[in-house]
């Protein structure tokens, strides 16, 4: 049923993608400030914000589900000292910082974070499937997040293309090296690795959601939200 649900979702996304592409691909990329663009930045941002909002919801639910199911009584309380692989990316830590940073930089940061999560999400899906009594709630959400993350990445690249046409930075992202710990034989270590990963995912999706909303307000509404 997961497979059918996943494939149905893929189909749906594909159709919506096609519809989106129909409207987008045939149109020239709008330079910043242009008014004649068919696909406005506003729409792109709206969609991006919807996606990021959705991804954050899913990751929160997934984390809660995992916490409830596997982490109880295991003492994974040391979450405060966990380190996420995206911590090396120096992202703004509060609202003032986020508002002060230039939006291009922020966009790039967002892209970097999104790219950093491509690999971990892919492996998360594979490893959750391999868990004993693979919980459907977690697995389905993991699959969904992976999918939506890819879409958000594409949307962000389009936004960047509109906001900063011509500037293509090197694809920088943080490398995730947590795969071995996800595949550990020791169950405790493995579960803690999952816990860590899901916690980081929840945090990063919250970051991206907040950044995008700030950006939307700044760019689309010119800080007059």
């Amino acid at each position, binding site marked *: 049923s997961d497979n059918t649900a996943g494939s149905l979702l893929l189909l749906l996304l594909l159709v919506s993608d096609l519809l989106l592409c129909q409207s987008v691909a045939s149109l020239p990329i709008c330079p910043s400030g242009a008014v004649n663009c068919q696909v406005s930045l506003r729409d792109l941002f709206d969609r991006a914000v919807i996606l990021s909002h959705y991804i954050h919801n899913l990751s929160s639910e997934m984390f809660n589900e995992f916490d409830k199911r596997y982490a109880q009584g295991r003492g994974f309380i040391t979450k*405060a000292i966990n380190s996420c692989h995206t911590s090396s990316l120096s992202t703004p830590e509060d609202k003032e910082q986020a508002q002060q940073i230039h939006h291009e930089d922020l966009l790039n940061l967002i892209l970097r974070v999104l790219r950093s999560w491509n690999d971990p999400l892919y492996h998360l899906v594979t490893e959750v499937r391999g868990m004993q009594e693979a919980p459907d709630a977690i697995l389905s959400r993991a699959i969904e997040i992976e999918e939506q993350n890819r879409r958000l990445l594409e949307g962000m690249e389009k936004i960047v293309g509109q906001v900063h046409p011509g500037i293509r930075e090197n694809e920088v992202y943080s490398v995730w090296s947590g795969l071995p710990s996800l595949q550990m034989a020791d169950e405790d270590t493995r579960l803690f690795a999952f816990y860590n990963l899901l916690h980081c995912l929840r945090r990063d999706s919250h970051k991206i959601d907040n950044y995008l909303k700030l950006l939307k307000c700044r760019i689309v509404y010119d800080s007059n939200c």
Partner: protein
Amino acid sequence: MINDMCDSACAPEGPTGMDLWQLLLTLAVAGSGSAFSGSEDSSEKPKFTKCRSPELETFSCHWTDGVRHGLKNAGSVQLFYIRRSTQEWTQEWKECPDYVSAGENSCYFNSSYTSIWIPYCIKLTSNGGTVDQKCFSVEEIVQPDPPIGLNWTLLNISLTGIHADIQVRWEPPPNADVQKGWIVLKYELQYKEVNESQWKMMDPVLSTSVPVYSLRLDKEYEVRVRSRQRNSEKYGEFSEVLYVTLPQMSPFACEEDFQFPWFLIIIFGIFGLTMILFLFIFSKQQRIKMLILPPVPVPKIKGIDPDLLKEGKLEEVNTILAIHDNYKPEFYNDDSWVEFIELDIDDLDEKTEGSDTDRLLSNDHEKSLNILGAKDDDSGRTSCYEPDILETDFNASDVCDGTSEVAQPQRLKGEVDLLCLDQKNQNNSPSTDTTPTTQQPSIILAKENKPRPLLISGTESTQQAAHTQLSNPSSLANIDFYAQVSDITPAGSVVLSPGQKNKAGISPCDMPPEVASLCQANFIMDNAYFCEADAKKCITVAPHVEAESRVEPSFNQEDIYITTESLTTTAGQSGTTERAVSSEMPVPDYTSIHIIQSPRGLVLNATALPLPDKEFLSSCGYVSTDQLNKIMP
């Protein structure tokens, strides 16, 4: 710019080994007592109560003070914090920047000290010793302030004028920057009537207005809202209560809601149905009793009186059972010549006469079997004389026709015996005279001049037979008393040849004295049947008579079976005479035909064959088939 930003957060200096070890130790301690759990000496040690960020930009932590007032001092309890930034912990614990703004026993971190998505650890010290510690991230401790500016507007009023819908609106808490989207809040509305105690909750919504449906116009309501961060579970405080006073109901409004009194209807419905059911049950009590508890069939064997069984008359019971034992339909088919000899077993009148021939040949006493009182509706059987086929219509059956025709002229003969028996009976058993009469008033024959045994049967045909027989006394003289059975037709009819007159000359009436002695010995011998003679002997004996009388009441009740006594009595009277005749005067060309109790019973030529008394068991002139086979090759 990023580098600038990073300067404050990124601490390039690495912690020393000792510091790191210390940090890990403290964190381990913090982990073990993670969520604000109380320690043993909760009353003495200060500990954290909660840390809260209302808008994801600042946060504050609160703790309880120890009860030791003597030690209570602003400086004695300190809060230190440390936070990790870019995979490195800052080296040292920093003290709380603001002990005042958030109130007493609190530490307020303003926005410059607050970093989101960064783990913090704080510790409480008292006189230098750590009393409590905890670690968290700021986005996990968000508890928004209550919404403000609640107001409501009337949406519409129902057509009945009783209910109304309203729309409640509010403003998000002022410090939460929802406008830019930095924080996303979800709101939960609760409302209730003013005099109620339970709040009704609505589902959380993301918008700042929500409709409330179906409020009663004549009631006042209270409304309050609280908020939480999306994806969090902790709600903030409730807003101020909003009082909703709806416009008064118009006088043209419908009256009070008619709440269909389902409860009452159900109660009364059940009551009514129960009454009807009871009435029905009581009216059809008997039938329902039959349905629910069908009467267990009393063990009954046809032809046997249950009272007989009760009284333990084993002898009679055995006899009867023996009779029935042989009395099976399949026996009918065994030997063709054993096939039914249909006898017209007439009423007791004939039996008392002892006119076997008459019985054999006469055909209008088919109902004489009724004497015995047993009924049988098995039309398949052709035997004329069986204790329980008394109802067989001999007129209709072919088998009987032959015999009845031949026996016709013999009928009158029986009347002689009848008269004789009459005499005899009067001599022998006055008691028998009386008892049948009293207990069977329905029998027509209950008259003095009729032989008592006749009365035992309760059937009218018997009575009729008796009547007819009595009516022709004159014809008796011309009819032979006995007739020889010359042949038996394949159909089972018995062909008789005229026999000599009874040379004995001894009226059957002279028999009684001999009867008594032979009764007990022989009566139960023959398991297939019993002789009238034997039976008759028994009748004369006093004890039997008594038994007989006792049985009669039961006999009266059931017409479909006969009592041993009745059989006895019916058979008895007629048997005596034959016995006398056969024993004393074996006439070569006659046979005594007795009432055949079983299909195997047959009439035999008494003179032609040696009559081993013992073998025949009884002095009767008939033998069973088995005995016959022994005698005849």
